[in-house]
């Protein structure tokens, strides 16, 4: 609790992500309905909700892996539209970690990490290697740097994926169910890394069903269902006094096991 209070102070007034009236359709299926969300610098947001509720789609809209069709999305002062240049600018500053890790299997761990800094940011190779090694140190696997992704366990791969995203020195990190594809004994090592990252004041948006993690680091928990934000609140209030029936039902399902 004390930890939570300490972390919360890091959220500042500056708004780094704003979604205003965002709508999106897959064909005729209305997947996102009137999403409004402002995120302050340093804020840590957890998104939860039943499968198919549009959680992934929301965060994939934030780095234009999906294109929204109505409303505005503004990231770090850049408006996401059809302008390719804007999209590239935003992607440089927004890191993403996927459920399936998506490491590049033909490149070693180190090469996975230095690829984007050297090719996108034109960072000198030696500098990129130093940066990558320090970040691999932070996710506690520097000794695996010269192995290939296929030789690592799921938990190790996901930690590499986090390091790879951090190598771009992003302002914002997006996580889409980072522990859902992991064997139970590996979940903790990944969550520990994410808690460590939260303590550095990184702006984070994380889709997860790890409610313990949510309580520990979140400034705000958002509950989504059927493409809408149903409820959002500070974690303590969210978990102890959920207001909407749908939230209560969902929480009873995820917390019961």
């Amino acid at each position, binding site marked *: 609790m004390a930890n939570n209070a300490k972390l919360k102070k890091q959220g500042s007034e500056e708004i780094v992500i704003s979604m205003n009236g965002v709508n999106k359709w897959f064909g005729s299926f209305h997947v996102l309905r009137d999403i409004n969300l402002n995120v302050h610098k340093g804020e840590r947001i957890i998104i939860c909700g039943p499968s198919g509720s549009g959680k992934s789609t929301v965060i994939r809209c934030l*780095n234009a*892996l999906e294109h929204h069709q109505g409303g505005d999305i503004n990231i770090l002062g850049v408006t996401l539209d059809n302008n390719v240049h804007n999209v*590239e600018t935003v*992607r*440089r500053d*927004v*890191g*993403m970690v*996927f459920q*399936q890790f*998506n*490491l*590049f*299997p*033909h490149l070693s761990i180190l090469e996975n990490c230095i*690829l*984007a800094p050297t*090719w*996108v940011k034109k960072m000198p190779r030696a500098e990129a290697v130093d940066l990558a090694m320090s970040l691999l140190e932070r996710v506690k696997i520097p000794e695996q740097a010269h192995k*290939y992704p*296929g030789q690592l366990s799921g938990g190790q791969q996901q930690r590499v994926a986090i390091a*790879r*995203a951090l190598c*771009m020195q992003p302002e914002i990190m997006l996580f889409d169910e980072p522990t859902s594809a992991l064997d139970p004994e590996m979940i903790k090592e990944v969550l520990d890394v994410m808690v460590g990252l939260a303590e550095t004041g990184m702006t984070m948006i994380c889709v997860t069903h790890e409610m313990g993690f949510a309580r520990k680091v979140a400034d705000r928990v958002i509950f989504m269902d059927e493409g809408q934000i149903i409820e959002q609140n500070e974690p303590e209030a969210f978990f102890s006094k959920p207001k909407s029936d749908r939230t209560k039902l969902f929480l009873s399902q995820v917390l019961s096991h």
Partner: protein
Amino acid sequence: MKTDHSTAYVRQEDAPLLPPPRNETGIIGWFNQNILSLINDFSGIGAAIRSVLMAVGTLAILYYSAHILWALIDFAIIEAVWSDPDELKRVVCTTEIAGGIQHNGWHGACWPLATAKMKFLIYGAYPAEELWRVNITGLVLIIGLVCLMFDRMPYRMHIGISMLTIFPVFAYIMLVGLGDWIGLPYVDTRDWGGVLVTLVVALTGIIASLPLGVVLALGRQSNMPAVRYLCTGFIEFWRGIPLITVLFMASVALPLFLPTGVTIDNLLRALIGVTLFASAYMAEVIRGGLQAIDKGQYEAADALGLGYWKSMRLIILPQALTYVIPGIVNTFIGLFKDTTLVAIIGLFDLLGAAQAAINDAGWSSPVQAITLYLLVATFYFICCFVMSRYSMRLERKLDRSNR
């Protein structure tokens, strides 16, 4: 000692780690698993019948394999004529009944014929005093290829790039010539022939069809409809007509569309035809590889801000091409053998040159054709086999570093 595992139980001692049973390793193990196990199962009537059939089949196959191998050795080595010191030509490879010096019923290869025609089979009618140019080009090619086969070769990357960029220019200058002023007089491609033409057509096709195939495959997956339709149309067009028709059209129909006075070299037409044809096939092979790539790879590359070209070059293509090495090499091998079709438009590739040598009345004998065909077949087999083995090695190597 057997322990009952059906009740509560705690292991006190680890079970011992044992080596595998003896008859499962080594040559004996191989024989037991692959042959003996198939033919010594008499546990029932069905199994017994199967075992007997397997045994009979195995023996029959062994017998006929040995038979064919023996016939080949007998023809090509034991019965073969090796030299013709008195320059008797056809007489040395003909039986007495037909006016030759071999005993009646003789049937063997006529290697003096191959020796006499060797120059023609390799160079065609390339002028004798300029042959050194072909030899040097061939030597550079061989050295380059050998260097590329060794993983630990220093400057391997540079050698590879030079082989793809500088070497073609070098080969063009050497083979076609620059003019008398520099000591490299022009040699008309109509005088080229044999292995020279085969390798020029095959290597140009191989080197050019891969990048073209990549571009076409990417184009076929493009988001831009115009690009997509263009590439799809191109691929379907070239895949839809036989190569022989392509070559025929190139030699007969193309001149009709060109302004009078403009001519295109016959060899160049064949090169273009073969390359475009092969690149259509290549494109489809590569597209197969692109489709095998997980969507997450594209997304991870996008999320890192790599952009289309960088993500293709650094992430997608290296993986896609690795997946489809067997298909790529398959296309290369097909292309290599398809070069024999250029004989249709009057080019003397190796097969065409052999055909011409077979028609030489001075060597006319019953074994004339079979000797030369055997030689040509051996050449094609060695080339294709080397490609096949190299691709397998490459696959294993890339597989090791990937997974």
